[in-house]
């Protein structure tokens, strides 16, 4: 009898605790989606991250955005487009690709961009993949840009979205966010690099 009462009490308490947790989760999801800063202030960062699920597409897109990389080919001393997809193989053809995501979130974060620079140079120089730059030509650094492609108006003649070479886009639609410092280009290429954009 005592055991049964104890068990019933434990079940009631568990139910109450789970009810409070569930309600707190709903409040967190709702407040975060509704634009309140309360969840971010009161919750640990990890918990706050899991309630950030509801604010989906709240703003109009002002442009169709893509991110691209170029490698500095040491032998030619030129920037040539580097296809990052072999080095970021998950979802290679859409904006859920991890290269796009690292640029989306961290393009203004120097330590991350430096790590990305080292990663891309290291991967190309392993010469294990075709990335648009001949395998036998080492690169000394990278230049990372965003593309901001204008959105057509309704009634315009539309073109199916596709990946075109970086050189197809006018300069006005490109913005460089990061490039390897000249000192590092020189060190990696083993020669003094001057007059590089």
């Amino acid at each position, binding site marked *: 009898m005592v055991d049964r009462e104890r068990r019933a009490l434990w079940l009631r308490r568990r*139910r109450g605790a*789970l*009810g409070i947790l*569930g309600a707190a*989760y*709903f409040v967190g*999801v*709702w*407040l*975060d*989606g*509704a*634009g309140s800063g309360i969840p971010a202030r009161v919750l640990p*960062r*990890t918990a*706050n*991250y*899991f309630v*950030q*699920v*509801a*604010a*989906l*597409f*709240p*703003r*109009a*897109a*002002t442009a*169709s955005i*893509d991110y691209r990389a170029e490698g500095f080919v040491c032998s030619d001393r030129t920037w040539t487009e580097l296809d990052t997809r072999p*080095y*970021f*193989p*998950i*979802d290679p*053809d*859409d*904006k*859920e690709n*991890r*290269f796009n*995501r*690292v640029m989306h*979130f*961290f393009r203004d*974060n120097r*330590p*991350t961009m430096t*790590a*990305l620079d080292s*990663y891309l140079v290291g991967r190309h120089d392993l010469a294990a993949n075709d990335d648009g730059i001949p395998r036998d030509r080492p690169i000394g650094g990278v230049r990372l840009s965003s593309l901001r*492609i204008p*959105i057509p108006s*309704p*009634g315009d003649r*539309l073109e*199916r*979205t596709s*990946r075109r070479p970086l050189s197809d886009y006018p300069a006005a639609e490109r913005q460089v966010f990061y490039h390897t410092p000249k000192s590092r280009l020189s060190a990696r290429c083993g020669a003094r690099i001057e007059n590089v954009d």
Partner: protein
Amino acid sequence: MLRRLLAWIDEPVPVLRLAIVRIFAPLAILGFMRGRLIHADEWIGDAGFRVPDLGGDWRQPLYVPALPSWAAWGVAAAMVVSGIACCLGVRTRASALVFATTIAFVALSDRLAAYTVTKLSPAVMIAVALSPAGARLGIDAYKRPRKHGKRPKRLRPSGAARFLQVLPVVMYSASGIAKARGDWLKEPLVLWSHLHDSYQTPIAFALASILPGWTWTAFQGMVLAFELLAPLWFGLARTRTWALVFGLAMHTMIGLMFGPVLWFALLMMTLLVGGYLPERLLAPLEALAERLERPPPLRESTADAAAPPDH
């Protein structure tokens, strides 16, 4: 008010509603994860790019170092096995908990490949683990009557079932407010503006080419009204079924028009169907479950002990 809420939570619900979520949510989640799973060493292991430890940067909720490749493949295998086990109703509580844990881990380990599905799914799967979702339409549910001679209950009170029912409504409501605070009341072509990036499917392109601009504004208004007033639509018995139909249609269109968002759409559709499918439409599933869970014919000596089905 509180008493009415508690009475509503305690009201028995068809266990099949939970079984629907148990079966289809893991499939939608694994569908979303499939591209990541086949590159597990690049995703959460040391073979791919890792954002360095940024020491408390807001974009990095927790720094998780890269796993050695063998461990990354181990996490991927655990996710697949537990997800499939949960879907099939094999040790549902344990498999759902392991599945939830692996999803939460990858969500934290790689911020870059984490989306709404990754962040929402742990809550869904924990609710499944805490519910009697494995009691019907699964392998364990099939075996139990053969072992104990007892049919599972059709109806059970479950706070987790109520959680899963309220979850999409909370999400819609918050999402509607986010949209209203954003551009959806100011810009007539918000939906149109999202049709032109790499999410674009052939269907999105065809519709964007055919439909006049005002139709996108009309869709935008309908979606906003649906989401903002979701508590009303789903709360009132009179509008509930229509809200379900609209929600399913909306997610179908999202899934067809925005490539990878398909899996999120399927997860939300699962929650909607599990939570709000009218009971009469559960009948074919009930018949199937009854057939699967029928105890084997008993020998005469034990026939008296056979229990009738619980209700």
